[in-house]
């Protein structure tokens, strides 16, 4: 039952909000309540999974593999918890930053349906159902991206929508061929039946369809061009939740299918993933180095960081996948926080362009500190969370003797530090240029407090993971053991009855 709550609860509150369509004050309150409730459900689900293993719920009591199963293993549970934390931070942050126009056109219900889609994608154990949740998530994100109707937003939205629809069509075709091969859609059942099929070439072919479809969604090289074209156009709160969560749903799906379903020819498929990972890291960070707009720099860094997570999957050893999962945990929190800080900067200065910024450290030293925590963590400076994440992935690479990818990842880490110091120098350290547009926080003191609350919260989480990394890493390691032992998943889904 607990498995349904992370999906049902945001949907329920979204419907309630739609009943009070014109009352934006009610929207704000219900949105906060819903996000807080999600955290409670997520933590309950997580402790359940952590204590008593993989949880399965057969929807409508239709037994697997005939019905749709909801499955929560440790990876899913971790993702659900982080989603709820990010959802809550964004909900608070948007109180101070989303303008009244957007609120009136249903910003908050959309936010909740987006979270529902994301949670659904993390929890489902059925490959076609995953497609459906992707579409739920996509349509909410389409509207959130275009809401407001500024010229740039619409331009970004067109690129985002077109490429994501293309990826959905490829995903659907892959699902169809997979069904033709195995006659089942349940992921656990697929994992059980596919090794018996004597058509491995076809299976590898389908796995490439899935790699491309999920690759577009998780923005890997060379399929990422929609991301830097669209992520910097919506309001900061929307950018932040997109940056934190959406691409990671793609990464999660890659991790799921390439540890559970497509493991017949890992020499071939996972080597491709590893090569892609290297190019993703490098091209993302080089793109960031050439940009002079805070949000564009951060957008390109999403891409390069996706490379590290995929690298964990491509190396395909227990430590590497644990590193990949730990990287996801660290990255979602840090990246969302950086976008939130970026939003705060533009609230003060009215711009995201580094050339027009400056002198912020003198005005708001605390904001500088709050920027430095996630920024240095992203670059992998010890003892912050990013250091441990990078350290694990690199260690796994060294253990396996994959020196090229390790060299690339270390070099990319250096370049990440370079572009973080670029933002620091340009926005905080150098003197403000004379034509600076604004130098005061526009808004009341309450708004200021609301704005800083989620930033401080996420920064504290980053510091906690950094200084107290052992429990987090333990969980990532257990999740990776579960992933690399697909029989646990298969037995949990197909062997347990509903009662």
């Amino acid at each position, binding site marked *: 039952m607990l498995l349904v709550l992370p999906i049902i609860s945001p949907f329920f509150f979204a419907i309630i909000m739609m009943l009070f369509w014109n009352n934006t004050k009610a929207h704000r309150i219900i949105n906060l309540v819903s996000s807080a409730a999600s955290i409670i459900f997520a933590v309950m689900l997580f402790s359940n999974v952590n204590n008593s293993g993989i949880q399965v719920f057969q929807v409508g009591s239709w037994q697997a593999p005939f019905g749709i199963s909801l499955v929560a293993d440790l990876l899913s549970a971790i993702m659900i918890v982080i989603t709820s934390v990010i959802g809550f931070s964004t909900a608070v942050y948007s109180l101070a930053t989303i303008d009244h126009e957007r609120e009136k056109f249903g910003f908050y219900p959309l936010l909740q349906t987006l979270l529902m889609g994301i949670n659904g994608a993390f929890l489902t154990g059925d490959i*076609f159902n995953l497609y459906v949740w992707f*579409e739920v998530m996509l*349509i909410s994100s389409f509207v959130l991206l275009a809401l407001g109707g500024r*010229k740039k937003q619409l*331009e970004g939205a067109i690129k985002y929508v077109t490429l994501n*629809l293309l990826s959905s*069509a490829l995903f*659907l075709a892959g699902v169809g061929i997979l069904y033709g091969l195995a006659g089942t859609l349940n992921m656990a059942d697929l994992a059980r039946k596919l090794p018996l099929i004597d058509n491995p070439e076809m299976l590898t072919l389908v796995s490439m369809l899935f790699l491309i479809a999920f690759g577009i969604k998780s923005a890997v090289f060379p399929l990422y061009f929609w991301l830097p074209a669209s992520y910097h156009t919506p309001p900061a709160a929307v950018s932040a939740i997109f940056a934190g969560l959406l691409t990671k749903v793609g990464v999660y799906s890659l991790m799921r299918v390439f540890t559970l379903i497509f493991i017949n020819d890992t020499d071939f498929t996972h080597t491709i993933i590893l090569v892609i990972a290297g190019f993703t890291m490098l091209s993302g960070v080089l793109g960031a180095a050439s940009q*002079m707009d805070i949000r564009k720099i951060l957008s390109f860094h999403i891409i390069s960081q996706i490379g590290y997570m995929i690298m964990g999957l491509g190396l395909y050893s227990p430590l590497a996948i644990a590193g990949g999962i730990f990287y996801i945990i660290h990255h979602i929190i840090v990246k969302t926080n950086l976008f939130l800080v970026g939003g705060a900067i533009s609230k003060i200065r009215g711009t995201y362009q580094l050339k027009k910024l400056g002198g912020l450290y003198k005005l708001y030293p605390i904001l500088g500190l709050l920027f430095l925590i996630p920024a240095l963590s992203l670059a992998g400076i010890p003892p912050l969370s990013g250091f441990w994440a990078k350290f694990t992935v690199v260690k796994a690479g060294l253990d396996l003797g994959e020196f090229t990818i390790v060299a690339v990842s270390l070099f990319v880490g250096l370049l990440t530090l370079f572009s973080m110091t670029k933002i620091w120098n340009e926005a905080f350290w150098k003197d403000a240029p004379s034509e600076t547009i604004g130098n005061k926080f526009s808004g009341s003191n309450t708004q200021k407090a609301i704005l800083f609350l989620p930033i401080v919260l996420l920064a504290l989480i980053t510091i906690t993971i950094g200084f107290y990394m052992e429990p987090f890493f333990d969980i990532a390691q257990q999740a990776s053991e579960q992933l690399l032992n697909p029989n646990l998943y298969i037995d949990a889904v197909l062997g347990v009855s509903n009662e």
Partner: protein
Amino acid sequence: MEVILVIVIGVLYASGLYMILRRSFVKVIIGLIFLGHAANLLIFTVGRISKGIPAFISIEGTLAENAADPLPQALILTAIVIGFGVQAFAIVLFKRAYQTTGTDDLDELNTTDELIQ
């Protein structure tokens, strides 16, 4: 029957790909719609096509030999409904973008990719 469907699917994929590579908004949408239909027909074809035998289980509890598999059709129905909604949204979005930007040429939508120095 399969051969015809396979050719149709191939043509749909080819024309869909060609259309989304065009620069006009409307042609891109048509291309996306073609690709969606191609995927639907693909599911239909790989789900085995059989003629005239409904997928009912008789009183004795046996399924007729070569009965049609109803699941691919259920999948396609779901995919059609989702595709319909998403395409409707895409059309409105493209129209709004046309009104706001004043162009229907994708090559002119480059302000979000400009490098600010």
